[in-house]
């Protein structure tokens, strides 16, 4: 927001400022005493808006209070000389504090207590003497270190505080203690509020005093006093921050003022005071959140004073006053909106600024009609000199009321002086400033057309104030979009050429003769003076040059030459010679000017109606890699061979993008031999990319990689550049792909086998000479069977003939497929190699992991091992050796391992797996390298409990017709004896001896042996007699027992024929 233009109608600052209760602080030495300074700063500086509405004033010893006027007992013979005294407000807001607070350093237990209390009392007395006559309150604040407890809990303190009060003759509630230890700010705010209370009390007392005068007044002679007293009441209430009461009193004052008789001699005073009162009223209404009432108040105010014009000789003063009423209101409205009041399209500050501008226009009209005579300021004595005591009074007749006769000659001189001042006043600046304020508000409140109207008015005003640029207007007038009669364009062009040649241009045809002479004088004094170079910014204007620049490509490589084509069309019928043009290009690092040349010459010639094409070439700056180049503007220097030059700066964006709709282009008639100017699309931004890099890479590895191995990859970089490259660095990193996101989490890169390194891995290569090469070996280890993508980012420097130390970057990638080396499956079999689906505690069985090789590369199995979960143990007393140790396998081979284990107990939860099967392996080709350990979890086997154990001893091979023993041992495993009923199922292949059907008791933790002799009758694979058992009585383990006997008894025995000798 532009600041308000000022003139004599300005409101004095004391009217505009928000009144704050004045509190004097005495006894603080803020210069020499650090604690005092801290206290003063806490009171007075950085006041936040939520703190009490008070203003602190530091009183030193020499401060003098204004002298009190003797009290008037009777108003009978008193005739007021004016309405509002100019110094009254000033006194209230800066010279007469409501409270004076004496700050005094004193501890309650001070050793020199008696001396201190006397000194303090005397200081209070001297303050009392100083404020003599004013009702200003006095308070004492004792500054203490904060060690001693408050007087209420501390006998000595309470006693001494009482003594201090009586010595200083103050009430106990006017004594404060300020500990300056911690929480100073908190104490300060509490003190401040206490002082504020006292101040409000004081102002209330003052209002009572004024109200007492009311009875003595009469309406005939004291009309002014009715206004004055109500104003004072309003102001005191404002100091008290009682806004609605303040408003009431100001309203009374305003209405009383309306009743005064207005004549030419007091009109200025009345309307000045009315303006102040109205300002106060509106301000309070906004503060009370009554914006509608504020607007209504302003309207009625203007309505009432609209016709109180005063003397016609000073008509302009009336309009100046009205304008000020509007602008001040606009400012108040604006402040209210900033404080949160919502404005609307039909009611916002812009309107009031607009009115202010309109009345300033009227003011100027009035000036033109009444001030024509005032060509000279009256001399020798200045009629406007002199001090005035009241707002709005005239210096040449101070303090006179209307009845007095006045000096007509002096009056005349004064009016002349005022008229002269008005004549020299710059109305345009004021109008423009008001319009500026209004325009910004209309823009905010969605009124584009209203704003446009005001902008036009503003332009008019600039024109009136003759604030324009001859060259710029002349250049703009030659534009094909501006219609002036054609020979007029010729005249304008001639004038431009004349100015370039340091000659005075011809006069404008339709200006009056005396203005012509004036213009001639002005030209003569300026024609060969500085500034000789005139820059015309073509952003907002069009002219006889149309320009379209374009980069030939949207991207340029670092080592390419950037080319800009510039098409220039001269639309005015003439030939321009000796034009220098240059192009301004900006990049991230710099802005450069590039001269535009044609056929090697820098001086260009432009012909009317023809489109010329110029080519501008330059090398990009090495620092601009990856950034954009942008055409800022194109400058044409007219008269480059002359002393005076005109620079036309054609800006980017606006001017280049002519607003012709593409569909309309077909209607434009342009000669075919021209470049198709209208169809040329400007391109003002290009990007600079890295130079193409001439390196090649050769990658060697034995892909696919196997999961878990450190897979070596060797790559060789060959320098195919024509120069050696140096400072080469390679950065290896993993790229994520859709099937392999977050590769870093499972994949490692390293330059050394078996050692992890943080990624990305940096390799410094250094210099590679022309057509030589350099190799790098790196290892990759991954636990995921997916394709790993490795990026090799190569950066290096190269010295080219045209650019030295050019940095180049090239990215290479390679994909490495990772597969599983083998698959492991498991089967469980009983000791007789029958597949089993469960095992019994203490009953050995065999785990058979089968390793199916998937790797296309031959592998060598270094070792294997079964890591069992807790509930299993090896059946042998020590860990058996792996039976496939050292085996070499090829693709599709299956290596089977076998480990005999047994369950120790039945765990509570069924284990999810038997254990981990660890395979240590390596590639056969890499015999010296490290082995890789792969672990596979083997699936689980349910464990069951059986109350008896069973062992069967039998020969696996027998001869026919030979008796062999078959021993069966039953072991009791529970705490109870178990009775079994056993039957023997005989077969045709055998005869046997022993009990066929009987019952046996297996005692707890003991064994029973059952011995049979079997006698095979036939040869071949035979099923021997089998025992079957059922538990007598208890049925819980029936099935288990049955299963146990089925599993353990041999299914077949091979019987050999007898060898006959």
């Amino acid at each position, binding site marked *: 927001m532009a600041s308000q233009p000022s003139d004599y109608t300005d409101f004095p600052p004391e009217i505009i400022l928000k009144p704050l209760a004045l509190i004097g602080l005495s006894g603080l030495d803020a210069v020499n005493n650090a604690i005092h300074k801290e206290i003063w700063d806490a009171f007075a500086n950085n006041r936040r808006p939520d703190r009490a509405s008070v203003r602190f004033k530091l009183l030193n010893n020499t401060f003098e209070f204004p002298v009190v006027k003797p009290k008037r007992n009777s108003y009978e013979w008193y005739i007021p000389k004016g309405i509002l005294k100019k110094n009254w407000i000033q006194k209230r807001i800066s010279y007469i504090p409501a409270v004076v607070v004496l700050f005094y350093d004193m501890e309650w237990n001070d050793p020199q207590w008696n001396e201190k209390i006397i000194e303090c009392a005397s200081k209070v007395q001297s303050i009392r003497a100083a404020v003599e006559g004013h009702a200003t309150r006095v308070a004492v604040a004792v500054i203490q270190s904060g060690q001693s407890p408050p007087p209420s809990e501390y006998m000595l303190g309470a006693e001494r505080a009482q003594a201090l009060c009586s010595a200083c003759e103050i009430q106990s509630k006017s004594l404060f203690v300020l500990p300056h230890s911690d929480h100073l700010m908190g104490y300060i705010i509490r003190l401040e509020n206490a002082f504020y209370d006292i101040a409000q009390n004081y102002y209330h007392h003052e209002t009572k005093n004024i109200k007492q005068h009311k009875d003595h007044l009469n309406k005939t002679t004291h009309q002014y006093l009715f206004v004055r007293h109500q104003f004072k009441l309003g102001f005191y209430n404002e100091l008290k921050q009682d806004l609605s009461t303040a408003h009431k009193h100001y309203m009374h004052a305003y209405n009383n003022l309306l009743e005064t008789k207005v004549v030419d001699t007091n009109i200025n005073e009345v309307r000045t005071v009315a303006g102040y009162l109205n300002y106060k009223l509106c301000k309070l209404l906004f503060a009370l959140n009554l914006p509608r009432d504020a607007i209504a108040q302003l309207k009625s105010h203007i309505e009432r004073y609209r016709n109180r014009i005063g003397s016609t000789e000073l008509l302009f003063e009336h309009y100046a006053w009205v304008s000020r009423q509007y602008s001040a209101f606009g400012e108040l409205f604006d402040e209210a909106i900033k404080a949160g009041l919502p404005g609307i399209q039909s009611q916002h500050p812009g309107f009031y600024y607009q*009115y202010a501008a309109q009345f300033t226009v009227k003011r100027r009209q009035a000036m033109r009609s009444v001030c024509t005579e005032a060509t000279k300021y009256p001399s020798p004595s200045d009629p406007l000199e002199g001090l005035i005591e009241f707002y709005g009074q005239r210096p040449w007749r101070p303090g006179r009321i209307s009845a007095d006769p006045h000096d007509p000659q002096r009056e005349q001189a004064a009016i002349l002086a005022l008229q002269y001042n008005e004549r020299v006043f710059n109305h345009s600046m004021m109008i423009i400033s008001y319009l500026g304020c209004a325009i910004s508000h209309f823009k905010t409140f969605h009124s584009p057309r209203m704003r446009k109207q005001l902008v036009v008015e503003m332009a008019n005003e600039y024109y009136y104030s003759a604030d324009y640029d001859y060259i710029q207007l002349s250049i703009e007038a030659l534009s094909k979009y501006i219609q002036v009669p054609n020979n007029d364009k010729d005249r304008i062009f001639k004038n431009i050429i004349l100015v370039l040649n340091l000659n005075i241009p011809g006069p404008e045809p339709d200006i009056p003769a005396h203005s012509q002479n004036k213009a001639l004088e002005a030209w003569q004094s300026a024609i060969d003076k500085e500034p000789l170079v005139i820059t015309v910014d073509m952003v907002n204007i069009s002219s006889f040059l149309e320009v379209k620049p374009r980069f030939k490509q949207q991207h340029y490589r670092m080592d390419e030459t950037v080319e800009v084509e510039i098409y220039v069309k001269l639309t005015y019928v003439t030939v321009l010679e000796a034009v220098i043009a240059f192009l301004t290009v900006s990049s991230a690092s710099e802005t450069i000017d590039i001269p535009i040349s044609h056929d090697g010459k820098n001086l260009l010639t432009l012909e009317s109606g023809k489109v010329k094409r110029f080519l501008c070439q330059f090398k990009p700056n090495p620092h601009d890699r990856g950034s954009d180049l942008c055409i800022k503007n194109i400058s044409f220097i007219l008269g480059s061979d002359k002393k005076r030059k005109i620079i036309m700066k054609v800006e980017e964006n606006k001017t280049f993008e002519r607003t012709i709709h593409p569909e309309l282009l077909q209607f434009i008639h342009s000669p075919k031999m021209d470049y198709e100017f209208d169809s040329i699309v400007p391109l003002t931004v290009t990007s600079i990319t890295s130079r193409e890099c001439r390196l090649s890479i050769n990658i060697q590895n034995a892909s696919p990689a196997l999961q878990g191995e450190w897979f070596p990859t060797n790559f060789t970089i060959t320098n195919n550049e024509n120069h050696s490259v140096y400072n080469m660095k390679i950065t290896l990193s993993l790229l994520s792909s859709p099937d392999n996101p977050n590769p870093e989490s499972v994949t490692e890169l390293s330059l050394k086998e078996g050692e992890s390194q943080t990624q990305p891995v940096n390799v410094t290569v250094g210099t590679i000479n022309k057509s030589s090469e350099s190799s790098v070996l790196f290892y990759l280890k991954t636990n995921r069977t997916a394709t790993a993508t490795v990026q090799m980012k190569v950066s290096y420097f190269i010295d080219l003939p045209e650019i030295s130390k050019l940095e180049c970057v090239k990215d290479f990638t390679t994909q490495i497929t990772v597969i599983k080396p083998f698959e492991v499956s498991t089967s469980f079999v009983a000791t007789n190699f029958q597949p089993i689906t469960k095992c019994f505690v203490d009953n050995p069985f065999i785990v058979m992991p089968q390793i199916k090789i998937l790797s296309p590369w031959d592998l060598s199995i270094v070792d294997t091992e079964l890591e069992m979960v807790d509930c299993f143990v090896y059946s042998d007393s020590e860990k058996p050796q792996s039976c496939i140790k050292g085996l070499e396998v090829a693709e599709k081979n299956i290596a089977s391992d076998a480990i005999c284990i047994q369950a120790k107990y039945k765990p509570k939860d069924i284990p999810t797996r038997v254990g981990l099967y660890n395979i240590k392996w390596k590639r056969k080709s890499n015999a010296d390298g490290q082995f890789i350990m792969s672990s596979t979890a083997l699936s689980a086997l349910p464990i069951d409990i059986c109350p008896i154990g069973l062992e069967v001893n039998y020969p696996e091979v027998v001869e026919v017709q030979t008796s062999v023993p078959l021993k069966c041992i039953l072991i009791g495993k529970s705490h109870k004896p178990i009775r079994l009923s056993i039957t023997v199922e005989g077969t045709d292949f055998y005869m046997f001896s022993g009990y066929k059907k009987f019952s046996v008791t297996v005692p707890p933790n003991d064994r029973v042996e059952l011995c049979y002799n079997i006698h095979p009758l036939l040869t071949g694979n035979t099923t021997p007699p089998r025992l079957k058992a059922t538990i007598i009585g208890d049925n819980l383990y029936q099935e288990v027992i049955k299963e146990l006997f089925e599993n353990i008894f041999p299914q077949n025995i091979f019987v050999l024929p007898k060898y006959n000798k």
Partner: protein
Amino acid sequence: MAVCVAVIGKDNSPLYIGGIGSDTGSDSELSRQWLVHTALDALEERLSSANSNNTAPNATTPRPDLRDLYLGLLYSTDMHKIYGFVTNTRIKFVLVTSSTSPSGSNIRDAEVRTALRRLHALYADAICNPFHLPGEQIISQKFDKQVKNLMLNNV
């Protein structure tokens, strides 16, 4: 008494601007045009807010045609009061009264409403002319005469 009546097309191009008054100088002609032009700010604001109000609650139902075509007082300046009216085809009528003349200052809202309705009827008659191209300026002398009459008599 109305001092100016304007018919404005749906894309805000002026179709007709007629003014009467004691001063017929180009200055007052220009200020009249400004008045009508700036009234479009308020008009458009009203239309856009009316639109959003209508469509917001239940967008499925078609916009009710019950909307009052008469928009009432758009804004007022020291000298003039400006009223607006929008037809269903978005043709805007602007009527400007002078608040300084005795007949204009005490004008009732209902009178303005009637006048604008009559203007609507006159406009409808004028564009019924088969030789009139919609969207073109209205150059009918009859229309001009009738509008001037309307400004003088009715309001």
